């Protein structure tokens, strides 16, 4: 059949370049690998040239594929599955990139692109290391491009192509018609949860972090392959630093995103997906330190190999966890398995896999087994220092620190991998009751150790330090840190009582360790380095990390829920006594606000004013007015409006986006946890006008109405008018048949903008009262509506996060410290070093502190 209106050319071009990229990556792998084993210089050179051409071909192809997908999505060619699934006509152009990496194919492509671009730098800069390092990168490219290959060999479907056609992928009666495209009005579009500025910026940075970890891996391989066992460390170190910076920033961007636009209520939840990217970072940091030790002393070379390999291996493992659907029920992120099932005969047993999972599995195992295998085979040959590290030496304590980082990574990944054990052994182990606590109680001990180590270790010298030296230098920072911690404990205590005294004690210890590290690292820049900022990258990075720890400890210990049902006077079924405070603790965190009725929330009086529609269809903003009054004088000290929103999708699912009022020292954070659809909540009742004089009485359907009085320019708990204003308020009482009395105070006001009517409501009787006007006979016209409409309300949660800015500030300082180390180790010229620092600094400050 000839289908109408299809654009098949871009897909054919795209698919051709996928195949070209695949073949080119195989050729470049062969070329670089052969070159790395050739000792004859002429042959080596010609293989290198061949491999470089193949790699560049692969890069160009990847770019073309990317542009083609972009073109298809941008033009809404819904005949392509990718455009149908990820793009839609109402999608704002800024999210077009985001819809490319929303899909699995797109994110593999992004990863491929970064590898290609990093490869170009390696080819230009790494000199004699080019061939072995590039052979590793090229091999990874073979696997990555295979994931989007979309090739059928017999029944086996290798990789899922981003260029498949909708009519081939899904069955439906419409596809039997030639004009089926005219029925597909719109695509499914980008998931609403992901329509966010962070979705545009976070995946590329995170994937650059992922992609760059292959370079230390490649150098470590090169060290083994060339038998120049120790020489790889120097060129690999700047790359490892680059990777640590980008990956660290990428991870925390995810945290910031979760914090400001997803309703998780925090920036870190120990979700498997978060853990999966944190673990390689921790190992990378361990590796960085062992590499520095090796460069300074010759110790820790084997550990450097191991950590360089494991970092990338765990990147692959985390891909395996997040892409194969094995995490299933444990994560808030939703995953599915893709690809067709394939069956194999394995040891005479029929085994079935999803093809995609199998391919990812092969990718992980290939890199894991070959690298670790090579390391074990060469273990005896790798030189190591005969002399033991002195306990008074810097390298000894740095090594302990690395080990702590590594063991923390092992702990986290062991816990995160529970679904894998369940699959392997058929068990049904699940996460504990309080997932966060089960991680926090271990990690807080790590924070204590790491804080102390990063404070003290730099004051040691490599090889050996005279014993008096340390005490003399460290005395002042210790004293200052102890004083600050004590002062905090007295004036701004941590209130993390929930988990008992043990954890609170640990939290204080960690707080001391972190503050200690901030102070000690800051003073080391002056005492140890004599203010030589050029060499201070390490100290600055440690300072930033420690500051981040301080922020994490304070913001998570003293996070406060200010929306609680208690204030509505509603009964609470759940109320346990807190073991520490002996106060009733309230696990109920949702508060319902009825429109125009203020409710107390922490120090604020909050009123749901109105809701309004945003630019995008289905998005509704709730205007919440926060007012803080002086306790005694009742004067308004502060007033601001937050507009959290909900997004109702085409299929009526709802997503909620928080809004935050950011202060220097705290954030007020709120999001809608439940809302009714007001658009479907039409009111058919009309206002009935009645005329009353002061003291008059009349009937309404459920009782009598009394107009008690009319007040000019009222000044009471609800209104605050000055004598010079022009406002009239009716004080009305409704007395129902069951003898309940309800008061209402509708008002009419004339100001420079015109006439305002402020209606009042009696929810218990479903009544709306309007001050409609005054008659010639000086009677008051009251509009009364007995509504059949539901009350407008919204249910929300609100928190106060104190000192959360320390987390972001610490991260930025850490990242800049790492950049400083990297540019120093890479021996960049002053111009490029300044450029790198400046752009990283401006970018980070903007993204984390000013962008919202």
């Amino acid at each position, binding site marked *: 059949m000839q289908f109408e209106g299809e654009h098949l050319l871009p897909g054919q071009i795209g698919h051709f370049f996928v195949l070209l990229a695949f073949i080119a990556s195989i050729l470049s792998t062969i070329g670089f690998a052969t070159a790395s084993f050739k000792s004859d210089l002429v042959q080596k050179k010609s293989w290198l040239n061949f491999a470089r051409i193949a790699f560049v071909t692969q890069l160009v192809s990847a770019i073309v594929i990317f542009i083609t997908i972009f073109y298809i999505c941008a033009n809404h060619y819904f005949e392509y599955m990718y455009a149908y699934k990820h793009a839609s006509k109402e999608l704002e152009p800024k999210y077009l990139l985001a819809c490319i990496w929303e899909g699995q194919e797109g994110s593999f492509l992004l990863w491929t692109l970064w590898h290609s671009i990093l490869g170009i730098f390696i080819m230009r800069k790494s000199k004699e290391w080019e061939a072995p390092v590039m052979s590793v990168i090229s091999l990874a490219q073979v696997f990555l491009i295979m994931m989007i290959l979309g090739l059928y060999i017999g029944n086996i479907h290798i990789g899922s192509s981003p260029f498949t056609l909708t009519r081939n992928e899904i069955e439906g*009666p*419409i596809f039997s018609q030639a004009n089926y495209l005219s029925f597909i009005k*719109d695509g499914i579009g980008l998931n609403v949860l992901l329509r966010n500025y962070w979705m545009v910026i976070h995946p590329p940075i995170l994937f650059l972090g992922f992609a760059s970890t292959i370079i230390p891996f490649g150098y470590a391989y090169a060290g083994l392959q060339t038998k120049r066992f120790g020489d790889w460390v120097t060129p690999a170190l700047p790359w490892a630093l680059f990777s640590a910076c980008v990956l660290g920033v990428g991870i925390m961007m995810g945290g910031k995103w979760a914090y400001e636009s997803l309703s998780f209520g925090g920036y870190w939840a120990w979700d498997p997906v978060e853990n999966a990217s944190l673990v390689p970072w921790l190992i990378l940091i361990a590796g960085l330190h062992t590499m520095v030790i090796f460069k300074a002393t010759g110790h820790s070379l084997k550990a450097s190999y191991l950590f360089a390999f494991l970092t990338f291996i765990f990147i692959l493992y985390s891909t395996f966890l997040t892409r194969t659907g094995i995490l299933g*029920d444990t994560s808030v992120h939703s995953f599915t398995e893709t690809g067709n099932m394939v069956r194999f005969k394995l040891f005479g047993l029929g085994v079935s896999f999803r093809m995609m999972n199998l391919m990812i599995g092969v990718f992980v195992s290939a890199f894991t087994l070959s690298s670790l295998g090579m390391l074990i085979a060469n273990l005896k040959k790798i030189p190591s220092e005969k002399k*033991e590290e002195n306990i008074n030496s810097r390298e000894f304590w740095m090594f302990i620190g690395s080990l702590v980082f590594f063991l923390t990574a092992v702990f986290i990944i062991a816990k995160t991998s529970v679904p894998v054990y369940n699959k392997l052994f058929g068990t049904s*182990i699940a996460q504990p009751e309080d997932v966060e606590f089960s991680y926090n109680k271990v990690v807080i001990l790590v924070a204590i150790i790491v804080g102390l180590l990063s404070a003290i270790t730099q004051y040691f010298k490599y090889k050996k330090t005279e014993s008096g030296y340390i005490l003399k230098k460290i005395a002042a920072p210790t004293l200052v840190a102890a004083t600050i911690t004590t002062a905090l404990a007295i004036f701004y205590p941590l209130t993390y009582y929930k988990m008992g005294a043990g954890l609170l004690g640990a939290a204080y210890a960690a707080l001391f360790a972190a503050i200690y590290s901030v102070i000690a690292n800051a003073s080391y820049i002056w005492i140890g380095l004599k203010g030589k900022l050029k060499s201070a990258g390490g100290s600055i990075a440690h300072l930033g990390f420690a500051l981040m720890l301080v922020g994490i400890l304070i913001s998570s210990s003293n996070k406060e829920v200010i929306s609680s049902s208690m204030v509505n006077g509603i009964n609470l079924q759940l109320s346990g006594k807190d073991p520490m405070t002996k106060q009733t603790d309230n696990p109920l*965190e949702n508060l319902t606000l009825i429109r125009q009725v203020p409710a107390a929330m922490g120090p604020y009086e909050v009123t749901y004013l109105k809701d309004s529609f945003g630019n995008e269809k289905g998005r509704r903003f709730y205007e919440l007015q926060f007012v803080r009054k002086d306790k005694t004088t009742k004067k308004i000290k502060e007033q601001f409006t937050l507009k959290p929103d909900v997004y109702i999708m085409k299929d009526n699912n709802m997503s909620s986006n928080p809004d935050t009022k950011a202060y220097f020292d705290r954030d007020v954070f709120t999001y809608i946890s*439940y809302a009714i659809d007001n658009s479907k909540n039409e009111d058919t009742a009309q206002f009935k006008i009645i005329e009353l004089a002061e003291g008059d009485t009349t009937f309404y359907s459920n009782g009598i109405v009394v107009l008690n009085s009319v007040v000019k320019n009222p000044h009471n708990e609800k209104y605050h008018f000055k004598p010079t204003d022009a406002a009239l308020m009716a004080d009305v009482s409704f007395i129902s048949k069951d003898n309940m009395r309800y008061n209402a105070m509708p008002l009419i006001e004339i100001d420079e903008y015109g006439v305002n009517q402020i209606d009042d409501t009696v929810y218990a009787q479903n009544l709306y009262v309007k001050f409609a006007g005054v008659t010639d006979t000086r009677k008051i016209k009251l509009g009364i509506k007995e509504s059949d409409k539901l009350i407008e309300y919204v249910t929300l949660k609100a928190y106060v996060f104190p000192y959360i800015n320390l987390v972001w500030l610490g991260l930025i300082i850490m990242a800049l410290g790492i950049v400083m180390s990297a540019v120093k180790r890479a021996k960049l010229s002053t111009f490029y070093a300044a450029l790198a620092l400046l752009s990283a600094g401006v970018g980070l400050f903007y993204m984390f502190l000013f962008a919202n």
Partner: protein
Amino acid sequence: MKKTHIIFLVGIAALIVALIVFSAGDFSTYESISSAKKKQGTFVHLIAKLDKSEPIEYDAINNPNYLSFYAIDSLGGKTKVVFHNSKPTDLEKSERIVMKGKMQADHFECKDILLKCPSKYKDDKEQLQKTITNQQDSAY
């Protein structure tokens, strides 16, 4: 690797082992509704789905922190569920619900709910078929 190292390694390894053993106690398990009923008061995970024949009770104005509904699982078990929190918006549409909590007498006292909704599964072909067929219907 000399004695100081070994001492430290052993010390740290012991600490880690201790921590894992210490935290092993707070793993929980996935249960069916009937097996969870036998473990009254124990924290478990249930995988079930919404029983659409029973009403969902949620009135945000009276109490935004009380939701109750009935859940059934594939083994035919059925239980009332009470969740002291706001109603997840996609509850009615969910195909599968992972609930964490404790069985208490007549109901499952739920602490956390994770919904698996068809709309989140763009890669689910059956769902896509439904969507695309609906588009055709609305076009006529």
